């Protein structure tokens, strides 16, 4: 293997005076699996766009298969075998799987007519190459995220990809789906296809990559074999500071008093059944399970969005009914959704308005008019408390980074002073620095007396923050773990065991 598949040398790129990339060099071998790691804004997206020809570097050289490109165009990049799988997967939601896979290939042959037999054969051939089976006639928009991702990968393979770049491919996948994806990536690597995997999920980085390149503030700070790396080093190199996870230890929960929330025999058709559990003041209760185990349904049910069909809910010993979202919010339930961008925020609206929206009725003066001063005070207070990084509350919410948006969703709910806060995947898609800040915040809230339900399949996260962890499987609670009496390994085994028993 004399010639590297891809070499980038001394790449520098500025945007309006900001240096996005500063003299970055690295290379990828044939069939190699590399991980490109960095916090948001570290320059990894810019790097990918330069390799795929979307951006042109200010200076530096790119070599693909030994050919030198000073100015790489998207077409040249694709012809050289570079395929990028973006987070939206670039699919047509209204078309079938077969057509989605084959269409680019058909277009590139310049044909005018569609031969449906050929479309299906081509698609099947592609799917066979990565050894997965998805019904060819299914409409792409109805499939799971994992399946849509596989379609995108198949498309890339059919386009004779030599290097597949995946941007945060595991964000919306369950653990089982991640395992399946990693197997496919391994397979591809063995067939000589190189992969660049962009991620900030550190365990995955260690699991999948042979080599890890870390960018920080546009500079390459580390480039070495993955097997010599530990998570601490990766974290340190990503953030430039020590992240002290062990300091977030918290175990006191007020279990002697009456439970804050008690749930008995809760049922939801197609969602979950016979759920009973208690949540105490000062407690962080983890709920874990694979995607589809009913964990999200439970959260939505307690929040009134998918009201349970039967069962009893007691709040501070009093029986209550939750029939809609208003029932839940008026009794002190707060919910931070999984898809915070879509469900949690009004992105074009200002940060201040976003914080104030859930308690808007308390901000009115004697008349029906909004008390602007009170609104600003409230907003400034939360921006400061939660350390939201913004020059002004007047800016739209979409101007914030992912981690800051997550904090904003929290602020919105905390402004209501909830007794019970339900967090669904609170750190999905959040980089490691912001993640530990969010964990810290959750613990602070619990210390102040709130009861917190944390839904997550991120095991280290659960182990760091929760007092107890309930494991859900097929709509039932199948196990309860006390944090002190279990280990990450045991929990991980139990989570995955869910599946192996059944196949």
């Amino acid at each position: 293997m004399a010639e590297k598949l891809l070499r980038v040398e001394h790449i520098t790129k500025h945007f309006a005076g900001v240096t996005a990339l500063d003299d970055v060099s690295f290379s990828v071998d044939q069939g190699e699996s590399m991980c490109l790691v960095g916090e948001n804004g570290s320059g990894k997206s810019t790097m990918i766009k330069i390799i795929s020809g979307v951006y042109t570097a200010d200076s530096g050289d790119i070599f693909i298969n030994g050919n030198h490109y000073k100015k790489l165009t998207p077409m040249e990049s694709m012809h050289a075998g570079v395929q990028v799988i973006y987070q939206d997967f670039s699919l047509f939601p209204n078309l079938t799987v077969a057509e989605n896979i084959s269409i680019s290939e058909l277009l590139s042959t310049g044909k005018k007519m569609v031969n449906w037999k050929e479309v299906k054969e081509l698609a099947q051939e592609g799917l066979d190459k990565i050894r997965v089976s998805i019904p060819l006639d299914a409409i792409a928009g109805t499939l799971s995220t994992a399946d849509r991702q596989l379609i995108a990968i198949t498309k890339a393979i059919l386009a004779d990809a030599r290097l597949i770049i995946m941007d945060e491919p595991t964000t919306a996948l369950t653990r089982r789906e991640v395992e399946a994806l990693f197997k496919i990536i391994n397979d591809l690597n063995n067939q000589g296809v190189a992969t660049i995997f962009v991620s900030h999920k550190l365990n995955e980085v260690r699991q999948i990559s042979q080599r890890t390149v870390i960018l920080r503030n546009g500079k390459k700070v580390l480039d070495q074999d993955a097997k010599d790396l530990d998570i601490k080093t990766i974290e340190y190199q990503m953030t430039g500071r020590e992240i002290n996870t062990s300091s977030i230890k918290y175990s006191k929960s007020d279990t002697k008093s009456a439970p804050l929330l008690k749930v008995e025999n809760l049922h939801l058709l197609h969602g979950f059944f016979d759920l009973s559990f208690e949540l105490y003041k000062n407690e962080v209760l983890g709920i874990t399970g694979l995607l589809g185990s009913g964990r999200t349904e439970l959260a939505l049910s307690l929040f009134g969005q998918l009201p349970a069909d039967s069962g009893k809910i007691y709040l501070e010993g009093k029986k209550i009914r939750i029939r809609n979202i208003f029932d839940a919010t008026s009794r002190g339930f707060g919910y931070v959704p999984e898809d915070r961008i879509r469900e949690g925020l009004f992105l074009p609206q200002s940060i201040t308005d976003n914080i104030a929206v859930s308690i808007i009725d308390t901000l009115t003066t004697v008349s029906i008019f909004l008390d602007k001063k009170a609104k600003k005070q409230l907003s400034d207070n939360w921006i400061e408390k939660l350390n939201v990084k913004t020059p002004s509350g007047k800016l739209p919410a979409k101007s914030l980074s992912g981690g800051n948006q997550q904090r904003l969703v929290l602020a919105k709910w905390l402004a209501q002073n909830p007794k019970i806060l339900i967090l669904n995947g609170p750190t999905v898609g959040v980089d490691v620095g912001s993640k530990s800040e969010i964990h810290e915040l959750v613990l602070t809230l619990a210390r102040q007396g709130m009861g917190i339900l944390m839904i997550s399949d991120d095991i280290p996260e659960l182990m760091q923050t929760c007092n107890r962890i309930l494991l859900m499987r097929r709509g039932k609670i199948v196990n309860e773990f006390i944090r002190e009496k279990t280990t990450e390994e045991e929990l991980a085994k139990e989570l995955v065991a869910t599946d192996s028993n059944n196949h």
Partner: protein
Amino acid sequence: MFNKLIKSNEFLVFLIIITLSIVIGMINPAFFSVATIYDILRASNVYNLMAFGLLLVVILGGVDISFVAITAVASYGTHMAMLKLDYQGGIWLYFLIGTAIGLICGFLNGFLITRFKLPIFDLTLATQTMLYGFSLFFLGATANFDLPERMVGYYGKYLAITEDPFIGTTGLHISVLYVLAAGIFVWWLLKYTIIGRGIYAIGGNREVAKRSGFNINRITMIVFVIMGVLAAISGVTQSGFQRNFSPTLFIGQNLNVLASVILGGASITGGRGTVIGTFLGVILTQLINRALILTGIPVEWQQFVIGVLLIIFIAIPAIREERARKVGHTTELSEEQA
């Protein structure tokens, strides 16, 4: 396969047509006759021609407002020119010239939309006003009844004739062949050509269609040219039926045609729709029309009924989606129960 058929929108429309027919027939047995079928088809033909064209625009992700004005300009424009030339021949020359005018109008729409990246709705709203204005001002302000000699009998050109005790002599009008030809052409275009797949692709995800290498401008042009041509054929046919040429032909009918297309299962947001669905949608609209006359329900109810049906049809996909979302997540659970 069978399951898929039953769940399809087309099947639902078909069921409604059958049910409605039975109900009308029970109230008024005169409804059950060949003449009724011929009559409904005859009334549907001109709408089907327009609807097939509009279907393409809707799948592409747009709504054309101007096609009704194209029917007027193409038919009325041709007629006024032919009058000057004292043409006395058959309708075929009208079709030829009308089609050319329709093609030019469609091309104009397509050109303006692609060249200046204009929203389809806005631009065609403008060209509709412009084209009706043009036909009223430049061509003439009133309907003209001077038909060329050999065109007079066109409205009664039947492929088959039937005697009906209630309706009298009627038949299967020849224009059903145009609908058949146009329907097959549009179906073939959508299903078997790269252009057709491009229309679906653009309606499904415009950005990805561009990235995948579809020539969006060319496809948009083609769609509007077909729309223009079909509108022109519809306009000439309708003028032949009613035995006069009007500068305001089909004015105000554009949303009714759109309603038929939506009833037929096309998605107003693009990416979805079929020829057979559209055909059934038009038939259903005409059937409701007829039903109210035959059952003696005041004609004003027609609008109301179609409106209610539209609400139901728009709601169905939304309800399905909502259900899917509610049930969808707990996949493990459903696996076990299945």
